[in-house]
């Protein structure tokens, strides 16, 4: 499908009334876990498009561009209300959080499996193990506070077990920055992958930044603060992969194109007919917004959109599906990796005076919430919470009870 050849819906016809925006939420007991993850991802994608548009608008006083941005942005804001409105009120922030981490695991793993560039694949694999561990920590908090099992939410489609322990994920800010792809040589799919993961991680960061104070329990507040900072690291890590050579208008076109690709992807896999119709409507809207962005690019930069966009959408839609074997393999191969400047290196190769250890000593100086939550749950339930469907943990010293931090 080539979005440039589709009619879409004109932006000026995209606004909806309050009752259309105030959608009926899904039933948290009946929703498919991957419908929940699709809703979480697309909410993050819309938030990124809105914030990008605001940033762009702050860098220009060209009335035509500002007005076009304002029009599309308002429509994106409508879309965000509809998508996020699908989350039900009886789904607690912690339950939503477990959904966020299931997104992080299965989206990152899927992107890594389909990523043609080995450097970008490495970047995805590296952070995958960290998000995988967050799911395990939050699952223990869920059992500790609510007495419930996270597997009821994930439907055991994603394993819950330690990844690279959260306590060792904290690194010096400089070591989160990576080299970027080259905008001319990059595979169109790679560009879309990076834009998608940046938006997803940014939404996770924002969610934890704002929901960390929803709890009275100090252990919950501490765990949200700790993991929110890892998500900040992940946004720094992933956004550094983007080539800054692209102009503002090219970036706008790529944003809209990625949204088209993702709504088209969600449409291919959605089983819920009502939500499927939302993906379909939003796909047509995004095509309309893409046309506006392409017109601006043509008019102001003299660039035909066909010069920078592929002739068709990628064949393979972004798909939420189990990635258990893949995650286990990455875990076995890379759990001991750390970053040293732009490189990924085994922790054993870092010199004792490396800034990584200095930063670790600073933030982990007293108790570490991500370790404490497992210890408290172990004390309360007589064991830590895990959902290992494919056998024992691939790393010996991460088998229950986990005995190592680093």
């Amino acid at each position, binding site marked *: 499908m080539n979005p440039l050849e589709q009619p879409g819906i004109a932006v000026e016809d995209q606004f909806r009334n309050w009752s259309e925006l105030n959608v009926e939420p899904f039933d948290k007991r009946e929703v498919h876990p991957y419908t929940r993850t699709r809703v979480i991802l697309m909410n993050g994608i819309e938030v990124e498009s809105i914030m990008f548009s605001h940033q762009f608008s702050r860098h220009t006083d060209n009335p035509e561009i500002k007005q076009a941005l304002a029009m599309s942005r308002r429509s994106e804001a409508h879309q965000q209300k509809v998508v996020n409105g699908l989350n039900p009120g009886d789904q607690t922030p912690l339950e939503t959080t477990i959904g966020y981490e299931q997104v992080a695991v299965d989206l990152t793993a899927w992107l890594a499996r389909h990523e043609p*560039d080995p450097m970008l694949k490495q970047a995805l694999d590296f952070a995958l193990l960290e998000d995988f561990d967050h799911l395990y920590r939050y699952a223990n908090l869920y059992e500790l506070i609510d007495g419930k099992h996270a597997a009821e939410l994930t439907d055991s489609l994603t394993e819950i077990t330690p990844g690279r322990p959260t306590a060792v994920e904290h690194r010096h800010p400089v070591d989160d920055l990576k080299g970027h792809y*080259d905008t*001319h*040589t*990059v595979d169109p799919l790679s560009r879309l992958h990076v834009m998608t993961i940046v938006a997803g991680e940014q939404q996770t960061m924002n969610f934890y930044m704002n929901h960390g104070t929803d709890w009275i329990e100090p252990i919950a507040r501490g765990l949200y603060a700790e993991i929110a900072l890892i998500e900040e690291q992940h946004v720094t890590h992933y956004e550094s992969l983007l080539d800054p*050579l692209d102009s503002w208008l090219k970036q706008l076109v790529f944003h809209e194109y990625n949204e088209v690709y993702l709504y088209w992807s969600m449409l291919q896999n959605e089983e819920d007919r009502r939500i499927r119709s939302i993906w379909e409507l939003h796909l047509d809207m995004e095509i309309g917004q893409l046309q506006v962005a392409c017109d601006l690019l043509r008019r102001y*930069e*003299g*660039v035909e959109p066909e010069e920078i966009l592929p002739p068709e959408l990628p064949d393979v839609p972004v798909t939420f599906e189990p990635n258990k074997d893949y995650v286990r393999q990455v875990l076995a191969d890379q759990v001991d990796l750390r970053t040293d400047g*732009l490189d990924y290196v085994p922790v054993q190769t870092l010199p004792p005076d490396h800034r990584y250890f200095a930063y670790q000593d600073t933030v982990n100086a007293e108790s570490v919430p991500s370790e404490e939550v497992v210890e408290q749950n172990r004390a309360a339930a007589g064991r830590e919470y895990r959902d290992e469907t494919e056998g024992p943990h691939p790393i010996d010293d991460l088998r229950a009870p986990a005995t190592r931090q680093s």
Partner: protein
Amino acid sequence: MDTLTPTKDTGAATKASAVVYAEPDRVVTDQDLAAQIGLDGVNGAFVADLLSACLTHERCGTHLYRSVAGRTANPILRARYEEFGRETMRHVEILEQVIVTAGGNPSYVSPLARATETADTKALEATFLGSGALDPMTAEMAMLDAVLLAETVDHANWEALELLAERLPNGLLRDALRDAVAEVQEQEDEHLGWARDMRARMTMLQVSSSLLTQAQAKGEELVAQVRGWFSGDSSLDEPIRRAAEQAPRGRSAKRPAKKKATSKRSAAKKATKKKATKKKAAAKKAVTKKKAAAKKASATKKASTTKRATKKAASKKKASATKKKATSKRSTAKKSAKKASATKKKAAAKKASAKKASTSRKKAAAKKTGASRKKAASKRSAAKKKAPAKRAAKR
């Protein structure tokens, strides 16, 4: 079709660095580039990087001309932008062919090309991201500035390519590059010369014209007038015409067309020698002129002091004469004022009598209308009294 934006589909390749990654099959090294160019005594990798940067600049130039041609409100500028855009597109084609002849990849984007594209992208963005604050004439100037910047670099690029062609050993690349320079350089002279001339003209036109002050209030009107300036319309204002004539012309307007590169270089050397001798002579002349000017200045000072004194006396005489005239004028004015007041009084008296007459007429009319109103009211009250009786009868 020529490539304006290299992508993976067009075979783009790049040189990896600590910060820029690419898929392994897209990465080229200095050794690869040197082997592609395959020239003895020349840094082949740098030649490849330079050609890539020059090609990138032509590609960005094509985008720039498309953009400004679509946005200028001036048909004369638009025609030029479109013409230069077509020529720049041809330069893309020529450089791609040169690179292919050299055994290189026209979709290779060198680090120098990335730097070029960064600068060119920002220069183009500067013409529209901040254009909301600009009146139409200033917006035109901003676009022209971007063209001038681009053409300045472009001109320097082709001069570098000309030197490179001379430095290369005999072979296909040297021939291809010489042919390219021969075809393109005159056009580049024209592009740069035109941009400099037009910028100077537009600047001086605004300096001389009070029209600019109206620009904010009457933008469209101004554009129409500006169109007239460039079209050589006979309705040009005289001061504007004079300013246009006085505006400095660009280098290329004076410079004759180039011939062969070798003769050019020797001619250039001679020219520089001549220039040096001319400079010395000019410096001597300037000294003597200064002395003469100083003498003249002292003489003129004296003369001016005497002139001033005579002028003062004359002006005093004039002032007294004008004073006398003024007093006589005032007395005549007083007389005429007296006459005017008398006529005014008479007119006022007439008006007063007319007013009296009208008020008496009005009073009479009011009496009549009052009587008629009273009659109408009495009729209405009688009808009201009868109404209930009528309704009862109907029931």
